[in-house]
């Protein structure tokens, strides 16, 4: 196997593994739109990083993290619906980023790579980011699993029972920012939400417990990465979108299989 292909596979699997449990929570907490909004604002991180000559991973994490804090703060004021706030913040930051990038004549930015990912160009340093960030996020999710799950089921009940609800909510958003930042390289900001949601949705069909769903979602995500890369090589299709297509094929297959199974049983 070629080196670049091995790095692509390792990078994709690293992102898919952590996207499993985080994606499960995104689905349970109905935060798909939040994830998409955060991913959109990632491009502002890229623009800022180029402008200030920062490491792009750091810049993206910083901007996505700031969005998480901003939304958490705005949620306390009931004046605007959360999805309205998200819609404004996401698209304004995307637009500002595109304008800023257009003015930066010195930096030749491959916009397509940020929008749809460039997994075949994953470097060793990217792998360090993916596995460093991914393992951190996984460890954090495991550590706060019970309070996060309790708060997901019912925030007020969890709070009365002593769970640090506000803390785990913010921590979860920040972890999401981290995963979006490292996943940017793999499927890009327009498709990263699908890597969070599709494997989790497929896993729901077969999982009996929340933990099973998280683990199965990771496994399905890894399969989608492998399948997408294979398809990309075989048919010379763009790698990032091919991974999402592979995830969709897996979701459909699992859904049809469980439907057939339950009908017969």
């Amino acid at each position, binding site marked *: 196997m070629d080196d670049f292909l091995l790095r692509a596979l390792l990078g994709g699997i690293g992102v898919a593994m952590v996207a499993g449990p985080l994606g499960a929570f995104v689905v349970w907490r109905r935060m798909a739109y939040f994830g998409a909004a955060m991913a959109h604002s990632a491009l502002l991180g890229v623009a800022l990083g180029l402008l200030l000559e920062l490491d792009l991973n750091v810049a993206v994490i910083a901007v996505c993290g700031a969005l998480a804090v901003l939304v958490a703060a705005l949620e306390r004021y009931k004046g605007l619906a959360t999805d309205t706030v998200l819609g404004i913040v996401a698209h304004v930051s995307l637009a500002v980023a595109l304008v800023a990038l257009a003015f930066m004549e010195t930096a030749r930015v491959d916009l397509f790579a940020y929008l749809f990912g460039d997994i075949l160009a994953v470097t060793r340093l990217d792998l360090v980011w993916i596995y460093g960030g991914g393992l951190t996020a996984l460890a954090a999710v495991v550590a706060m699993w019970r309070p996060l799950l309790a708060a997901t*089921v019912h925030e007020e009940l969890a709070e*009365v029972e002593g769970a640090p609800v506000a803390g785990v909510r913010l921590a979860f958003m920040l972890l999401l920012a981290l995963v979006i930042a490292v996943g940017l390289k793999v499927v890009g900001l327009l498709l990263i939400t699908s890597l969070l949601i599709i494997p989790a949705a497929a896993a*729901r069909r077969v999982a*009996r*417990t*929340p933990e099973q*769903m998280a683990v199965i979602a990771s496994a399905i995500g890894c399969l989608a990465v492998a399948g997408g890369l294979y398809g990309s090589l075989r048919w010379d299709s763009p790698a990032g979108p091919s991974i999402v297509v592979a995830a969709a094929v897996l979701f459909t297959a699992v859904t049809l299989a469980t439907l057939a199974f339950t009908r017969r049983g």
Partner: protein
Amino acid sequence: MANQATEPERPHGLLVEVAGIDLKLGGNLVLAGVALTASEGEIVTLIGPNGSGKSTLVRVVLGLLEPDRGSVYMRPGTRVGYMPQRVVVDEMLPLTVGRFLALGVPAAGARPRAVLAEVGAAGLAGRPIQRLSGGEMQRVLLARALLREPDLLVLDEPVQGVDVTGQGELFELITRIRDRRGLGVLMVSHDLHLVMASTDTVVCLNHHVCCTGRPEAVSRHPEYLALFGPLAERGLAVYTHQHDHRHAVGGEAAPLAAPPPRQDAAEDTAEDAAETEGRSHG
């Protein structure tokens, strides 16, 4: 157990005491000068129309909302079991009743099954939480609150989504739990007559406390009647058949055995209707 030296002297067994609570939400004064107490072994029911601030007051007692003014006292070390108004678990979350119960108390061991049996929901532990009927869900929520071995149960509309016979059974269950465990209960209801038999104290709330006292007294209180209108009288007549003495006109909480004269023709009409219905119920 003894009161702290710096605290004001409080009666033994007092679990919760809130006083002078003002709270504004979105510019509206939702609670104005509200006071409330609950003690061990006592069932206190908050009643009031929709939007009268009942759930808000419950949230203040639980510490989920900070009042703008007033004091909230809870006896140090009080464990609270809370049953929220409505819990809907997303279909996407595979969660059994057993796991749902364990979310409130870690490492609960075999106790969830015992508590499920206590609330009459034995055998539900393995059922997906989304596959429960309204009555089953309320019992499971009660079980989760009881698993914490609470000193105080706070129940926000505990019979929501339960049919009429089920409602009566649930209130009886709550009374039995109080008797057995000796805990205090603070619950919210929108209907006095449903909870009449299973409550010691009623607090009638419409942003301020309209009246408070034993359920029979409150049901005859002019402020209560003004708040709930002829419907309340009808309910009273149907359920307790005490329509020949009530109406403490213009006064404070009417004493139990003081039947003031009737005044209002409109109320008489309401009563006639109630009487008819009462007879038809046997």
